[in-house]
Each structure stands twice: as structure tokens, then as C-alpha cells.
């Protein structure tokens, strides 16, 4: 149902009616903001990037193909801006998809996992320590529920690489989670 309304609003924007775009911003701001935040890991930067993503989307909406889904297109813009932001910020750092980062930077977390919300919190923290492109893939696939090919399009990589990123992310997260859960059981 949203898709139909999105199409209508996009058509209005293409005719120069900005008011329709306000509804699109209201509808998708949390998802764009969350994706940016998961990738850049900083509230202020995420807000700036999310705003920039909507402005970039508006500027390109004239050529937007209404047969495409709007949301994956919007998230692709936000993801690219977030990754570019990290590149600018850390030009000499380890490559954004290097697994070594995740291997060496696990922090210590409280070991007692009693509540699901605590588990969510822990997982969220662990996700922030994955390499940037893995974080983006995890966020787009699991949180935003994009398909493999939509994630591939957003990150401009083959579907096979998306699967590899997700597989490695799961392995890294599982490894750490296994330690935490087993220690939690012992307590």
C-alpha cells in the first residue's frame, strides 16, 4: 500500500510539488537515520548524513524510475554517503571491509544476559565493531529486510560478496556471542 502512495508522491515531486516530499521524509526518516547511525556510529554525523541523503534524493527525484522501489534507492544513497563519510574521516585506516578490524577490537561487555533487551543491546554494540561494509550489509539485510540483490545494488558489489559479508559477520558475532553466553551460563 505504501508503494502506491510513494509512487503518487514521487510523481508529484517530479511535477515540482515539494509537499509530497515532506511525507516521504516523515515516512522514512527513522529508517534512513538508523541505517546511517549503524554505519557511522555517531549520532550527530548520522543526522547530518540522513539529511544529506534526503536532499540528494530530492535533487535526483526527477530522473527516478517509478518502477523501482523508493526505499532501497533511498537507503542506497544513505549507505553511500555514510561509507564516503567514513573514508573521508579515516583515509589511512584499515580498508572498510577488512575483517581484521573486527578480530582485534572486541571490548569487554557485561556477562550476565538476563533480558532480551540486554541481548539486543549487546548485539548492537558488537555490530558497531564489525568492519564498515559488513555493518552496512547486516543493517540493510537484517534490519531493513532488503533482498540480497537490493543490498548488492546499495553497496555496489556482487550478490556473492553480500553473502560472504553476511556469513563473515555472523561468524564474528557468533564467536563473541558464544563466549558471552557460555560465561553467562556459568554464572
Amino acid at each position, binding site marked *: 500500500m505504501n508503494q502506491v502512495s510513494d509512487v503518487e508522491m514521487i510523481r508529484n515531486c517530479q511535477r*515540482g510539488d*515539494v509537499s509530497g*516530499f515532506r511525507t516521504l521524509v516523515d515516512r522514512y526518516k527513522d529508517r534512513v537515520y*538508523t541505517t546511517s547511525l549503524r554505519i557511522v556510529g555517531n549520532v550527530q554525523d548520522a543526522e547530518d548524513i540522513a539529511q544529506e541523503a534526503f536532499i540528494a534524493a530530492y535533487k*535526483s527525484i526527477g530522473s527516478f524510475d517509478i518502477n523501482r522501489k523508493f526505499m532501497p534507492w533511498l537507503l542506497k544513497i544513505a549507505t553511500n554517503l555514510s561509507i564516503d563519510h567514513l573514508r573521508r574521516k579515516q583515509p589511512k585506516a584499515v580498508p572498510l571491509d577488512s575483517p581484521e578490524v573486527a578480530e582485534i577490537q572486541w571490548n569487554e561487555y557485561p556477562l550476565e544476559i538476563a533480558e532480551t533487551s540486554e541481548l539486543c543491546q549487546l548485539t548492537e554494540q558488537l*555490530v558497531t565493531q564489525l568492519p564498515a561494509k559488513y555493518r552496512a550489509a547486516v543493517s540493510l539485510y537484517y*534490519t531493513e*529486510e532488503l533482498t540480497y540483490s537490493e543490498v548488492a545494488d546499495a553497496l555496489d558489489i556482487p550478490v556473492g560478496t553480500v553473502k560472504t559479508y553476511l556469513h563473515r559477520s555472523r561468524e564474528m558475532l*557468533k564467536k563473541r*556471542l558464544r563466549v558471552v553466553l557460555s560465561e553467562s551460563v556459568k554464572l
Partner: protein
Amino acid sequence: MNCENVRQLLNEYIENNLTDAVSQSLSEHLRKCEQCAMEESILRTLLATLRSLPQKSAPADFTEHVMEELSKLDDVPATISTEKARLLSRLASKSGLQPAWIGMRMTARSVGFIKYVPRPTVRLRIGEDRSRSLTKFPLALGFRW
């Protein structure tokens, strides 16, 4: 099915992407092997948690900020839309000018780089003395800035 095969297929098993026969065989292994069952439990927990990570709320004034930034732009998106392209070709056929020239003018104005671009005009020459004119055609093409 050995433990190594099972570990490789666990994600697809949890995601229900395996055939019934493979899935059945994997289930049997999990009933017998405590370590693989533990692996399955951890992966299942991880996937469920990843899917339920909370969405963050954008700041309350987020939309206003975006709309404020948009109001600073020209009101026409920079790229020419399908409708504009259609209008463009109609204009071009009426004025006799190349669509690309009119397009450049529209785009230049819409992106705000060039504020003063001549606008093509078509004037009806009814009642005018056309005897000294080079053409007897009743329409005059011109430019307005």
C-alpha cells in the same frame, strides 16, 4: 551428514532454504549432536536478535531541517523529468529550436548556476507591415532575457 556439513548449512536451515530431505537429515543430526545443537541455538538467537534490533528515532525537528534546506534550492529538481522532457519536445517543435538548447536553458535555470538565460519567444505578426521583412511568415522568433 557430519558436523562440518551441518555447520555449513545451519544458516540456510534456520532460514528454511533447504530441501525437505536435507533439512530432515540435518534435524536428525541436531537431535544426536549436542555441540551442533548448541551452535544452532546460538545462531538462531543471533539471527532473531539481529532482526529485532530497534529502529532509532530521527530527531523531532529532522523533517523541518530537511524542508528548510530544500527551500533554499530551486523548486524544480535539477534533472529533467519525463513530463518536462515531453513539454520540452513540444516547445521545441513549436519554436523550431533544438530541444537541447531549450533543455540547457531549463536545466541551467533549475540548478541556479545561470540566472539570466534568454527565453525564446514566438510572436504573431498580425497587422504588422511585413513588406520590408525578409520573410512573409506571420510568426517572428525572438529572445527575451
